[in-house]
């Protein structure tokens, strides 16, 4: 690798042992990738030092304590020694976490786990990390600019960062983001470089226009399944592009596959034309998305649903935007639900939902608004849940396998209807 002077200095230990170990990990990682240099980054989104009770107990047993610095040293930086961890450089935020600190008992969390999370947050604050606790940092105050080099985790945020904002990040992991927080470096590989940002395949929409949030999610799920790690260029009738629809499209594409970047011609920032999006190359293949494909995606997403009696409606995957709160509050105002309903979001968006009256409307109807986490991350559903209704293709992809439930997929309206009646009646419109 070609190392800059500041990188060599960090490796030599000039800036302290923690930055040295962080650089060592980044070099191991960059060499595995086959990268030949690093790029500077000042926008990092990760989960530094956060530990489940398992990790905490593991390190108590194997290293004497499960403190933030122990977990950060031995696990995040994969170093052989416990170090004093300096404050993060640049704009660093913590992504989603394990529980809502107000409604932790509803999530079935122990007092010990809750107290541990409080302690972790105090450490994060002490280390200069913004406690955003969301999978949607771009809706909560971390919005990079086009061309900015970032080091982000969270596949749904990564795909949004690259595709919608035009900033540059690979799908980083816990260890690489934690190392980048101390060093401001990340391997200059993949999506940091112009030549790897062009589309490889074309997906042409031949259905009636893709317009609803559900249809954007289904198209995303289809695209991810076919593309895996490739970069699709979507053409055809796809309408009403807004942050909410991009959020659902990208999250779905990054679940059924590993899509980290997509182009929609005439919509996303690096796709002024089909030719520009493809980097003047021919697509490897052109894939049709027609009525038949749409039907198949819908059936796949509903393959886990059998019993129409719904116990639990989960909304907010990825974390709900303020416009989703408005929609859900509109559907619930003055009504009472028969199932459990949990809606997940960031603390920033919840604050706006609170003062806008949306939280109260949802809670008056019998729902709960929670922050920081979601059912899949927390592995928590209301006690006795057998059947879930979801409006997120991503959550459908993960939740049934993770907590052993049946799941239905449909529109937000289908889900609210299920909450009000206790029965799933959604159909493909």
């Amino acid at each position, binding site marked *: 690798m070609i190392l800059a002077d500041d990188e060599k200095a960090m490796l030599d230990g000039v800036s302290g042992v923690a930055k040295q170990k962080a650089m060592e990990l980044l070099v191991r990682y960059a060499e595995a990738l086959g990268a030949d240099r690093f790029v500077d980054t000042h926008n990092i989104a990760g989960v530094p030092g956060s530990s489940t009770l398992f990790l905490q107990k593991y390190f108590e047993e194997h290293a004497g304590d499960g403190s933030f610095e122990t977990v950060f040293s031995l696990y995040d930086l994969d170093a052989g020694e416990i170090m004093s961890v300096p404050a993060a450089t640049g704009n660093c935020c913590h992504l989603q976490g394990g529980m809502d600190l107000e409604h932790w008992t509803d999530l079935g969390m122990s007092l010990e786990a809750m107290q541990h999370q409080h302690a972790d947050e105090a450490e994060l604050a002490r280390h200069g990390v913004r406690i955003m606790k969301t999978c949607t940092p771009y809706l909560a105050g971390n919005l990079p600019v086009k061309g900015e080099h970032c080091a982000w985790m969270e596949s749904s945020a990564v795909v949004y960062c690259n595709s919608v904002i035009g900033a540059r990040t690979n*799908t980083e992991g816990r260890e690489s983001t934690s190392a980048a927080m101390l060093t401001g470096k990340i391997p200059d590989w993949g999506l940091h470089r112009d030549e790897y940002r062009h589309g490889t395949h074309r997906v042409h929409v031949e259905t009636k226009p893709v317009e609803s949030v559900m249809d954007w999610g289904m198209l995303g799920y289809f695209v991810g399944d076919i593309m895996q790690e490739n970069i699709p260029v979507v053409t055809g009738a796809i309408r009403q592009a807004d942050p909410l629809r991009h959020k659902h499209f990208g999250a779905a594409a*990054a679940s059924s596959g*590993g899509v980290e970047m997509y182009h929609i011609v005439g919509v996303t920032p690096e796709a002024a034309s089909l030719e520009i999006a493809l980097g003047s190359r021919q697509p490897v293949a052109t894939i049709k998305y027609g009525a038949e494909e749409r039907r198949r995606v819908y059936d796949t997403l509903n393959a886990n649903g059998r019993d129409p009696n719904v116990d639990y409606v989960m909304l907010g995957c990825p974390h709900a935007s303020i416009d989703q709160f408005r929609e859900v509050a509109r559907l619930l105002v003055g009504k009472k639900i028969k199932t459990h309903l949990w809606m997940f979001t960031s603390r920033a968006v919840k604050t706006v939902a609170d003062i806008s009256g949306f939280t109260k409307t949802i809670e008056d109807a019998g729902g709960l608004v929670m922050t920081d986490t979601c059912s899949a991350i927390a592995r928590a559903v209301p006690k006795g849940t057998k059947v879930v209704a979801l409006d997120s293709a991503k959550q459908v992809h993960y939740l049934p396998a993770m907590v052993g439930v049946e799941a239905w997929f449909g529109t937000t309206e289908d889900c609210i209807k299920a909450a009000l009646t206790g029965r799933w009646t959604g159909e493909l419109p």
Partner: protein
Amino acid sequence: MIVLHGRGIVGGCAEGEALVTRETISGWGGIDPMTGTIIETRHELRGKSFKDKVLVFQGAKGSSGWSNAFHMTRLTKSAPLAMIFNQMTTKIALGAVVTRVPAVTELDQDPLSVIETGDWVKVDGDRGVVEITKKR
């Protein structure tokens, strides 16, 4: 014996029985890090564990928790003995590095065509060499 040559991305040597899938593997939400079992609903290896196996697969997909999930298998002693894969991504590079098991990619023949589940496979991550003894 069949010998494949590629690029070692994590050093060390290990040998054992192969567990092969043409599919990519999801880390977080796709495996149970406590047991090394694939849990993804539609995966062809669903219910099978890669613990103490040489995992031969297309690559990584899904959540950015990939490295964390595989890193955890190292702590729970459920990690694969070694990894052989085709498609390089940040998820798998970081995941292999922190799992600290020998890992090889960019092989001169497609390992998914050459290696079958149950074959005995020796992985040399320092030299980027894979030796395969067919089960029959």
